Every structure is written in structure tokens, then in C-alpha cells.
């Protein structure tokens, strides 16, 4: 982008502010992927640092969100490679560290949903959260995760199907099992 020095300064300043404003959203998305507060914070920090260093590589300021979440996805991928080198991240199913008993006892719907999301394979989880939490279009998600748009659709579809089974069918089943509370007795 060819700008005179003053305009460039203003542009960079505005961009820095815009990046800083995204911090909370980046953290939320990172958390929805890993469900680990400290790791989410680290990933957010790493993303912000990389973004600030590579500001000049952002060709289109309108595409800031895509660019930023793409960096986050890369950071997450790098982290995953560092820690679990020999597993395909798309096939990996995370174990749920929040037990159903605990959810039941505490009646936290939030925890139940987060637990269900955390059990999704990572690829599905990323597609789901980018669409549902950040409102990205399928094409944008494909750009961010560097996968074909058809894969985005299938991952999203499978993710929602699994969540439906986990969160809605369970509820229906328990509703069906319930006996009528009042019976006519002759």
C-alpha cells in the first residue's frame, strides 16, 4: 500500500487499535477450541504479537478479521504440532475433562454445552466456532483454516449433528421416558 508517511502512520495506528480491540474475541475463540484458559491466553498473545509484527502483510484492511483469525488458527496448529506431533488434528477427539455428573450436580448449561463442544474433533470445532461465534461466512472460514469450502460445510454439518445428539436428543429421550404424572384411577 503506497501511502505518504503521515497517512501510513495514521493507518498503522488505526490498525493497531483495531487489532487490540479484537483481543477479547480472539481469546473467546481460542478458548472454544482448547477450553484451557492459560493456553487461550498464550495463543491470543502470540496471535496479537504476530499480527502487530506482520501488519504490513495485511493487504486489505477490510479483511482484518479473516487475517487475524487465520493467524490464530496457525498459532493453534503450531502449538498442536509442537505438543502432539504424530496425531492428525482433524481426527483427534478431545477427552472431556468436565464429567457429566458434575454438570448434572451443578446444573450449568454452559458447562454442558462447552463439554459437548470440547468433545468434537478439532477441525469440526474450529469450523463450528468460527461460524457460530464469529459469524464468518463459509468462504472466510475456508480461507482462515486453509481448507476447501466443501470441507467447511461437512465439518460444520457433522459438528452440529453431534451436538444435536449430545444436547437435544438426550433431552428428548429423557422427556419420552418420563411417565405421566397424573393417571385416572377408577
Amino acid at each position, binding site marked *: 500500500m503506497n501511502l505518504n508517511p503521515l497517512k501510513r502512520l495514521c493507518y498503522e495506528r488505526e490498525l493497531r487499535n483495531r487489532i487490540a480491540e479484537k483481543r477479547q474475541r480472539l481469546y473467546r475463540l481460542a478458548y472454544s477450541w482448547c477450553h484451557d484458559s492459560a493456553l487461550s491466553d498464550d495463543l491470543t498473545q502470540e496471535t496479537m504479537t504476530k499480527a502487530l509484527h506482520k501488519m504490513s502483510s495485511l493487504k486489505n484492511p477490510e479483511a482484518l478479521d479473516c487475517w487475524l483469525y487465520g493467524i490464530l488458527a496457525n498459532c493453534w496448529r503450531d502449538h498442536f504440532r509442537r505438543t502432539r506431533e504424530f496425531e492428525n488434528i482433524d481426527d483427534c477427539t478431545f477427552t472431556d475433562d468436565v464429567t457429566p455428573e458434575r454438570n448434572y450436580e451443578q446444573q450449568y448449561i*454452559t458447562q454442558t*454445552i*462447552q463439554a459437548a463442544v470440547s468433545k468434537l474433533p478439532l477441525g469440526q470445532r474450529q469450523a463450528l466456532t468460527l461460524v457460530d461465534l464469529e459469524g464468518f461466512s*463459509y468462504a472466510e472460514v475456508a480461507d482462515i483454516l486453509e481448507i476447501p469450502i466443501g470441507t467447511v460445510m461437512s465439518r460444520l454439518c457433522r459438528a452440529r449433528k453431534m451436538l444435536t445428539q449430545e444436547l437435544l436428543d438426550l433431552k428428548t429421550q429423557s422427556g419420552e421416558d418420563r411417565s405421566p404424572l397424573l393417571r385416572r384411577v377408577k
Partner: protein
Amino acid sequence: MMKNVNFSDEFLNAFIDGELDQKETGLILDEIRRNPDLSARITDLQKIREMVRYAYNDIDMPIRKKTYNPKRMKVWRAVAAGMILMLGVSIGWVMQSYEGGNRSLIELANAVQINQPPQNKDFKLVLHVTTGDTHRLAVMLDETERLLQDQEKQHHKVKLDILANGQGLNLLRADTSQFAERIHELRTRYNAVTFKACQQAINRLKQEKGITATMLPDTEVVPSAIGEIIQRQHEGWTYVRI
């Protein structure tokens, strides 16, 4: 739950995410009116989407102590380094001038022991001088005079013994003291102050260096500095060692 075979799950997901064009959207909306199963499937997908949004709506970041822009940090580091350098230079300058300026007795003191009860307004102080450092001795005399002036103004009874031994003996030696006149002035002006030299230290000087030390006329020689200090402390004097 009956599933509508006409629309794939991917297609319905695309519908709730607003990914379909107008024609496709119209097609589904038209079908929903006739097909309750299709309506239920779409409702379920929407519910899931809302549940996911709800579950992550209140994720708060942990509080970081400080976030920074790396580029800006470089500038701040340079500024901070400059300021530290300036501070260092300033402290050095001040300390240099400080050596030649006034310092209080407490700053000079190597040890302090207060034996006077706080309610007692009489001021009794034994200054144990063990240093031959000219500057420290000069400051000590300045402070002593100031103290005596202050106490006099406030009409407090004051007694002040300046007791020298070791290197401090230089203060009271006629052949080495640079403060003979000053000491004489103090002795003349204030009855409350006495200058005492330790006989043990004089003897040691003779034994070790063969120097026969002569004391200034305003000096009283006591058998032992330590004995004198113990005696004063028993009597409730405040002890300050310079």
C-alpha cells in the same frame, strides 16, 4: 424424528447460516410451511447454534498485568534506559556534592543506642568517635554545634560527651587535629560539651607506632573509652557511634 430426504443436512446448515441465495432460501421457506419435520430439523440446528453462542458469551480473559506493543516497547525501553542513565549520573553528582555537604549524625552513625526514657526532656548524648576521616569529623562537629544550639533555644538541659578512641583520636591529638580551633570554640561557648580521649588508645598508639600523642588543651583523658561508655549508658545517656 422423521427426516426430510429432499434437503441434505449441509443444505439446511447453509440455510440457517445465510449462505444460500434467494432462490434456494425461498425454496426452503416454502417447504417449511408444508413440512413440520423439516421445520423441526431447522429449529434444532438453530437451537444448537444459539446454545453454542450462549455457552461462550461470557468468556472473560484473565487479567494480564501489562500488554504492550513490541515496537512501542522498544521506544520505551530506550527512553527508560536514558532515564536510568540520567538518574545514575544525577545520583553520582548529588553524592559527590553530598560528601562535601552536611549529613546528620544519624546518617553518620555506625551504631545508636537510646537509653533515655522518652518523657525525660534532658538531653544526654555520648558521641563515640572511632573514625579519623576528616570529612566525617567535620560533619560531626557541625551537627554537634547545631544540636547544642537547638537545645539551648528550647531551654533543654543538655550534656554531650565526645569520646574518641582508635582512629578517632586524631580529632583530639594536638599534632594531627585539623579542628583544634573549632573544638576550642565549642568548649568555650558551650559548657555542656566535653571532649574526652581514651588513655588506652593513647597507650596503644605509643606501643604500636611509637607515637607519643599530646592531646588538645580542651581534652579530658579518661582511663578507658569502653568503661566511660558503659558508665554513661548506665546513667541513661544516648549512645551514638561515629
